[in-house]
Structures are given as C-alpha cells and as structure tokens.
C-alpha cells in the first residue's frame, strides 16, 4: 500500500530526549517524507534551533523546508505558581512535515487543519 507515513510521537518519548536530539530526529524524518505529530511540541528555543537547522539544509530542487504548525503555548499559572511568582509555559501539540507535502489550510487557537499530498 502506498501512502504517507504519519508518526505520532508521545510526550514521554520527547521528555527523554535532548533539544538537539529532537531537532535532529524531526529533520531526518521529515526529509524522509514523514509527517510527525508531536504530542507535546517544542519549546520556543527548540523551535528556533529547528528553524536555524532547517535553513542550513534547504537546497534547490531537493529540500525547500518544513511546514510546522503548533497551537500557541499555554501559561501554566496555577495558584501555586502565582504564589511563587513563577509562571511556566506549556507547549502544545505540533504537526511537522515537508513543505512540499504538508500545507496548512486553517489554524486557530484549538484547531489545525492541514492538507497532505503524496
């Protein structure tokens, strides 16, 4: 059966990886034509690393970059965090694929609608 491979990567697996391991895994898999769904998403600094590395790998007629879509981060500002004066950011589900195959149709705070082409 022909088709596009879709890998859904759990929060637990992502938690056990370093930032660079995540970025490398994403780029390698996406360059192999896979679509990845990350349960937890990437931190802002990991997103920066991914953008930087993607730019270094773009090559004419070979790789034009990635399509990445994630929901805006959530603020984890429960009472305990407020008392400590700390609010942490919670990253959310993220979809990443080759720019040549994945196209976002619509996105809002809680919905990502995308088109995948072979």
């Amino acid at each position, binding site marked *: 059966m022909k088709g596009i491979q879709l890998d859904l990567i759990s929060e637990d697996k992502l938690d056990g990886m370093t930032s660079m391991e995540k970025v490398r895994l994403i780029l390698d898999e996406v360059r192999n034509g896979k679509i990845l769904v990350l349960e937890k998403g990437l931190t802002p600094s990991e997103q920066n690393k991914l*953008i930087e590395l993607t730019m270094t790998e*773009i090559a*004419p007629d070979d790789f034009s*970059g990635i*399509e*990445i879509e994630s929901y*805006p981060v959530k603020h984890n500002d429960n009472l305990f965090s407020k008392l400590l004066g700390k609010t942490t950011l919670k990253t959310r589900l993220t979809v990443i694929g080759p720019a040549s195959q994945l196209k976002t149709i619509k996105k809002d705070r809680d919905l990502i609608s995308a088109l995948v082409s072979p």
Partner: protein
Amino acid sequence: MGIIKSLKMNFTWFKKFFKKKRARIGIYGPPNAGKTTLANRIIRDWTGDAMGSVSAIPHETRRARRREGVTIDSNGSSVTLDIIDTPGLATKIDFHDFMAFGMSEEESKRRAKEATEGVIEAVKWLDDLDGVILVMDATEDPYTQVNVTVIGNMEARKLPLLIAANKIDLPTSSPARIHSAFPQHPLVPISALEGQNIDMLYKEIADHFG
C-alpha cells in the same frame, strides 16, 4: 505617611538611576508583513533618514539592518532605541516562488540562499534584544507559526512585545482577529505605508519600551 512618600520618591529615583538608557528593539514578522516599511517610517519620522528598500517580492530584506540611538518622544515620555530591522522569518524557502516574480533561475536560487542566511540571522538576534515589535499583516490569519514562535520566545524570556497590526488601509484587514488570537499583548492597528495611527504606535513604544 511621610515615610511611605519618601520611600516612594527614593524608589522612583532608584528606578530612574538604574533605568536602561537604550533598549534594543527588533522588528520581527513573516516576509511581506511590512517590517521595513515600518522601520523606514520610524527612522524617517525621528531622524529624517531611511532604513532600507522595500519590495512586493518576499525576502527583500536578507540582512538585519541596525540603526542606533533613535529617540522617540511621545506624550511626555521619551525613549531611545537601537532598532533592528530583521529579515522575514520563515520555515520554508522555495526558489520557484521568486521565479514567479519574473526572476531568472540563477537569481532566484541566489536570493533563496541569501534568504535562508537572513532567517538564521533573525533567529540569532532574538537572544540579544530587550523587546520586539511584531509586525503582523492584518489581512492574514494571525495564527502563523512565525507569530506563534516569536510570541513564545518573548513570553519565555519575559521580554516586552508590542504587536503592530499592519495594513489597516486594506479593506480585508482585521486587527480584531489578531487581538482575539493574542489578547495578552498590547496591539496597535496601523498602516505603516500611509501612516495611520502611527502616533498611537509611538506612544505605545515610549510607554512599553521606555
């Protein structure tokens, strides 16, 4: 009462004394949002100079441009900024997109290569800023990954962010859509091209980054 007043005055003096003399502010956004048009307007209004050329072709700005010591006075507040006009952030750059604007293949490939370097430079600048003016095209969907990434970065670093909802001179613009997407950040609807609400933006800049 007197002690509190005295403490308050001392604190104000303390704040003024240690207040940062200059804030380094980056102008960020996706390609073609109007970053350089806005940078040009700010620089022209306060120094009489210009920052860089603008174009309908994406990634016209492929090197960050910096202008130091731009003093903005608004409503009694004054702030001196180092302004960095950054290349448009993107996660994909396809040289075919430039060919659609009539460029040759060779020229398009060169522009694409320079654009990738510009994106890397824009990302690296995020580490060295005191705040960001995020320029969004008010005619477009606000939930682009570029917007989400820049806002996430600023929130993680707890740095001030001001949203300029640009292109309100166009009939399909909707700054309200941007506000409902990112209500936690101040927003000024502007037309960098025609100068609409630009004084309102200067007031917000002076209040926010001063």
